């Protein structure tokens, strides 16, 4: 710990021009990950390429295993984590789906795996572009889910994810969602922290009495029926509940050690202080939204944006309190939930549920846009904002509207 003070006093960081995927690979190196598994699928495969390069160059010392499928890929790291290894893996779209059985058992066994999901539309058709349905498919299983919108945030969030996931109070896996193309394949200037700073922030992974080791003989995942299952599920619910405060602690520590501030970890508020209406969304659509907001503000429209980072745990109370301040809210989903209430997106459905107990419940509109990586344009954002203003004025309209659709 003596090093920690020195590191904070003498931060020697450098800046590199890297993609979001590369930033995740750099985070793996800084976190000194022990076991990494890979199986190619676009856009996640950019991460495995960068990791392979780091290993080949001798910059990262880890077991790097290219599995024969995503299912094995996630199973291998699950087992490695059970014996005490810090692990990383990731996938995209239907690759993530192919690992689904492994994805269900990972949180059940309290494995603090960190995974990167390069968000990609689910087949068919085999579109490469971003949709959030892949990562969202595990929303009910005990995975922590976080969305980032820049390469810098990808790197920082990966480090934070290890700290949160490996906290004994949590011990749940965490998937970091990075929008395909916009984040995985775009290079940006990223501040890379020195190793000492990371070491000061990130303790070693200690699996404690859950470590699968001859010196700690345990049986993991024996068959159990209805007389045990509720207790097991309740334990995991408690862990997810505790994750909320652990995330707050981790961001506070991150700010103290790295000097970079994220504010409220759960969602970012942009120009909301005086806003009449806001849009809500996740991931890289923040870029056109923020640009459009700056345009509209010059025209006198007081518009804000709330970017949800942590989808699980979902900060329902905080979000409901925040959104209650506005005259109307538009939720922009880069996903869909066929047949869901009001035929809306997943995020919109969650926000509606979060708002129900709130004292102030502004009108909510659900927007589906940018599917399969289609560009969300500044005019699209302006159009959505106009509709939200109309809702604020009490105009009746469809609860869910598709934006940027040829019709």
């Amino acid at each position, binding site marked *: 710990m003596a090093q920690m003070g020195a590191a904070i006093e003498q931060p020697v960081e450098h800046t590199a021009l890297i993609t979001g995927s590369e930033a995740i690979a750099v985070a793996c190196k800084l976190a000194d990950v022990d076991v990494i598994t890979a199986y190619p699928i676009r856009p996640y495969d950019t991460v495995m390429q960068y990791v392979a390069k780091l290993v080949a160059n001798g910059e990262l010392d880890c077991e790097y295993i290219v599995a024969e499928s995503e299912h094995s890929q996630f199973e291998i790291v699950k087992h490695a984590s059970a014996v005490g290894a810090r692990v990383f893996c990731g996938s995209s779209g239907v690759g993530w789906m192919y690992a689904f059985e492994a994805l269900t058992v990972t949180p059940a066994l*309290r494995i603090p795996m960190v995974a990167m999901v390069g968000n990609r539309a689910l087949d068919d058709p085999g579109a490469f572009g971003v949709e959030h349905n892949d990562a969202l498919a595990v929303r009910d299983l005990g995975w922590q889910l976080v969305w980032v919108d820049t390469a810098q945030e990808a790197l920082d969030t990966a480090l934070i994810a290890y700290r949160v996931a490996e906290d004994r109070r949590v011990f749940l896996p965490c998937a970091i969602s990075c929008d395909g193309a916009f984040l995985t394949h775009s290079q940006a200037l990223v501040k890379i922290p020195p190793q000492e700073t990371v070491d000061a922030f990130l303790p070693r992974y200690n699996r404690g009495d859950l470590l699968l080791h001859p010196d700690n*003989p*345990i049986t*993991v*995942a*024996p068959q159990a029926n*209805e007389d045990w299952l509720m*207790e*097991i599920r309740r*334990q995991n619910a408690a862990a997810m509940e505790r994750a909320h405060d652990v995330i707050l602690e981790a961001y506070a520590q991150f700010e103290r050690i790295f000097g970079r501030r994220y504010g409220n970890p759960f969602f970012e508020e942009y120009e909301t202080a005086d806003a009449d209406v806001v849009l809500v969304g996740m991931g890289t659509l923040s870029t056109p939204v923020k640009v459009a907001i700056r345009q509209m503000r010059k025209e006198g429209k007081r518009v804000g944006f709330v970017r949800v980072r942590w989808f699980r745990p979902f900060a329902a109370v905080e979000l409901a309190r925040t959104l209650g301040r506005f005259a109307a809210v538009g939720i922009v989903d880069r996903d869909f939930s066929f047949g869901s209430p009001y035929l809306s997106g997943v995020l919109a459905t969650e926000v509606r549920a979060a708002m129900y107990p709130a004292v102030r419940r502004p009108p909510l509109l659900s927007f589906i846009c940018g599917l399969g990586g289609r560009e969300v344009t500044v005019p699209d954002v302006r159009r959505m904002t106009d509709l939200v203003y109309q809702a604020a004025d009490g105009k009746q309209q469809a609860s869910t509207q598709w934006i940027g659709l040829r019709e």
Partner: protein
Amino acid sequence: MARLYAVEVVYRGIFQKTLAKNITRAIVLAAHREGKHGISFGRYGDSPERNGIPAKGFAIVADDELTLEEGMAKYEPKEVDVTICVDDTLCKGVESWAWYGLQPINRLLKPGGTLIVTSLETPERLIAMSHRKETPYKLAIVKGAASFSGLWVYKDDHTDARVLGAVARVLPELFSIGSLQETLRAENKKTGDLLAVSAQKSFDRTTTITVAPGQGNAEVPYSFEMPKWTEMREGIAIPAIAHGHQMTDETNGATGGFQPARNATFKKYLTRTMRPVVDFEKCIKCTLCWIACPDSVFDVTPEGLYDANLAACCGCGVCEAICPVEKCVTMVNETAFTDNASQWEAFRKDAPAYKSWLLTAIENRPERSHGFRYRGQYEEQIPAMIGNGGE
């Protein structure tokens, strides 16, 4: 006030699964002929496809549909009018595969309810095997060996009809012998008439005796506390079985051999119908039983003998099948025993007394077995069963 009836069938998976289903189905159908409504189901968590596992099937019947719904609003009945036990070794207790400890055979019986057992044992023996109950109940015996006739192909030996005839006798409000016979004929086009005759014979012969409160096995059945969710280790992790250790011979202080450590909570009592009995004087220490046993049942004694640890044994009989010495390891029906005590310790304390006990146990053992040794045994026994009182 509409009445609700519940009947349970306690049986051995997989061999008696069809038998149990035949009984619970016929109960519902016979009662339905008298205007009642009902359902028949097996306990899902029992995993009754497993060899020899104690399992339960239920018939719930009510005078009307609303009353039936009240009976269905639980996973399984909390009390029953009749418990049918189609393997008498289960009188010593029931251990579900989804495991809750040892449950007395008469646990669910209402005061004054009836326990019907298929057995060749005496009532006194069956009562002694069954745990004590605070309220009186009745015992009826359907005379015959346990029917293990149904593995993949069910061969009806009329155990179902005979048990059902006994139910009509002990609980006539549920259904009459006439309704039962109509049901058997309707459900079994070819054999219905014969089944109806068997049911009638059993109905005519069935008598009950009353078991008084406090009569029976005085032992408190093995049970354990289920921990709260906050008391359980997280991550679906449980302590593994520790390393084993040497054994000590209490008679001379000798140490040696090897006893594997075993799960302190999960102990077996009646997941088997038979247990291995070892003639230690015949043992040639070949190790085959020790190697072949899938449950690591055998403790290696200081002098290199193999003692079956019965808290770990599921009674599969592979030890008997693989033993090269005749009558060294013999599977003996569970009705012959009252505890899980070590045979080797008894042998070390008094070898002649042990030998005499052993010979008695082997000679008196009922023949019925579903183990490795008696493939085709059922066919061998049919003549004897037919001759058995003409039943």
